[in-house]
């Protein structure tokens, strides 16, 4: 029973932890502008993250070591360093977006300007990372993040024409007035938001933090193959609410307040309050994950002691790096740059960096020296290779499309 409860908890936290500021903003923005015609990009992204998160979880369970720990060893210091820098920049930018997201959520709840809240958010994130046990922070924010289900409830309560909604999702087309480059640009943004690199760093490092062994491979797979797709469904719900409520009114999403509009329209004050709790929980949880991920990747590359399974004194460089990253992340938001814009750029730059994150995972998961009998099978390799091609194409197209569309205008 205890094991079953543990598995259920893992699934729930995977669902609640799936959505972050990137998913909130991008799904809503795209739903308001393109309806459900880009739902396929979320579905492709969710399948991709499942394929690679399963691999990184398996690597952690079999080797007892996290991704970056092995990248340098397997690919050499130079490739490992390029990988490290790219992932740190992208994850650092995502951290800034998450901190901005928490501050915006608190601004919506309190009416206090978000810039005044940013330093407090940075401090709180640091305190939680410093003081709170890994399993506790993972479970509390993962479970609290489940409140994002309020968007699915809003879709159901809205009572849409389901066949038309599903039809528009499965027969994608470029809406009139929108160009193909813009459509593809937002497809890549959704794909990048679903496959954000920090998710696999955190997942595999979390496995090491929780001392996974080969016996935990099944649990890890259940978490990934149930938790992530259900989390993806929540992203689709956010898109659907925007398509149903915002698009007919001609509202384009440029703020977090607009993301919550459909919930308030359909469910009223109580629904709105739950949505604000969800915004806070998902962005705060993701700020913890991104902050830790920067520390994980750097410490693992340089071979420092890392993680929350040891006392902070024993992993001082890891904790110092997390602190510095949080200060920089909060500093970026304090420049008064629009956090929603930071989010939009962070998901696209995530897409650019995807091959650097996912190629090494595929290489290591294939290496029998590390994986023994648990190396990838033929089917796994075929699927992963197809995804690697998709990821590479998205990565190559992201910057030209960003320039051609002036970041989606």
């Amino acid at each position, binding site marked *: 029973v205890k094991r079953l409860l543990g598995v259920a908890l893992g699934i729930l936290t995977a669902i609640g932890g799936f959505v972050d500021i990137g998913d909130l903003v991008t799904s809503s923005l795209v739903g308001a502008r393109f309806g459900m015609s880009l739902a396929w990009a979320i579905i492709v992204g969710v399948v991709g993250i499942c394929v690679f998160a399963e691999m990184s979880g398996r690597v952690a369970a079999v080797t007892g070591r996290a991704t970056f720990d092995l990248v340098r060893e397997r690919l050499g210091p130079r490739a490992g*360093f390029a990988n490290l820098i790219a992932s740190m920049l992208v994850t650092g930018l995502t951290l800034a977006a998450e901190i901005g997201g928490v501050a915006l959520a608190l601004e919506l*709840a309190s009416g206090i300007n978000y810039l005044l809240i940013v330093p407090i958010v940075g401090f709180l994130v640091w305190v939680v990372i410093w003081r709170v046990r890994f399993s506790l922070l993972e479970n509390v924010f993962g479970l609290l993040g489940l409140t994002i289900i309020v968007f699915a409830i809003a879709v159901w309560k809205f009572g849409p024409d389901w066949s038309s909604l599903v039809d528009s999702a499965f027969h994608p087309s470029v809406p009139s007035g929108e160009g193909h480059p813009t459509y593809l640009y937002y497809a890549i943004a959704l794909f990048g938001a679903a496959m954000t690199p920090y998710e696999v760093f955190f997942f595999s490092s979390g496995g090491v933090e929780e001392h996974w062994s080969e016996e935990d491979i099944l649990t890890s797979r259940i978490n990934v193959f149930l938790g992530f797709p259900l989390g993806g469904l929540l992203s689709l719900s956010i898109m659907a609410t925007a398509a149903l409520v915002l698009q007919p*009114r001609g509202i384009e999403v440029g703020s977090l*307040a607009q993301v919550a509009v459909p919930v308030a329209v359909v469910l009223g004050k109580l629904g709105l309050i739950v949505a604000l709790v969800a915004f806070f929980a998902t962005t705060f949880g993701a700020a913890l994950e991104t902050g830790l991920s920067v520390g994980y990747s750097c410490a693992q590359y340089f071979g420092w002691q890392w993680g929350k399974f040891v006392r902070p004194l024993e992993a001082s460089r890891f904790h110092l790096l997390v602190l510095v990253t949080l200060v920089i992340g909060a500093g970026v938001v304090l420049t008064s740059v629009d956090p929603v814009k930071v989010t939009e750029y962070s998901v696209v730059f995530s897409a650019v960096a995807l091959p650097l994150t996912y190629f090494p995972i595929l290489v290591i998961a294939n290496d029998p020296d590390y994986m023994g009998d648990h190396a990838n099978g033929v089917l796994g390799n075929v699927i992963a290779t197809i995804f690697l091609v998709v990821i590479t194409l998205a990565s190559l197209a992201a910057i030209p499309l960003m320039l051609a569309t002036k970041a989606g205008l």
Partner: protein
Amino acid sequence: MRSLSRAVASFVLATSIVLLTACAGPTTSSQDYKRKAAATAKAAASEVATASVGTDLAVRARATASYLDVTFSNAEDGLSSEQENFSSRQPPTPADDKTRDQLNNLLSAALDAVANSRIAARRGDVEALRAGQPALRKSAKDLQRFEEAVS
């Protein structure tokens, strides 16, 4: 060392791309000016529509005061920013002055309507909010018509 310099180069490149996409480009022709006017009208109509939904939520007591305050402030800031950006553009020919004046008038009317709703919402004045709804709807419709006309 080479890896580090590549990392710095990547960072500089990424920053340049962001700046390049974030900056407003020059207006080169009447057609380009009209396209930018249409985009401004569309963005402004979105802000007014948001304020209109906010007003409806406030009248029916379906949202918290803090949320409404931020929603109205965001809509007002968004409109101001759109008006400022558009006003800073040079109309390429004297014939474009008419487009400029038309849109500026619409944006000013929209700003007034949204500001009135924001003031009423902060005061909790439901009657004033209700009275402001037609102005918001008219403003959103006018901006949409303008967008369609110049597109």
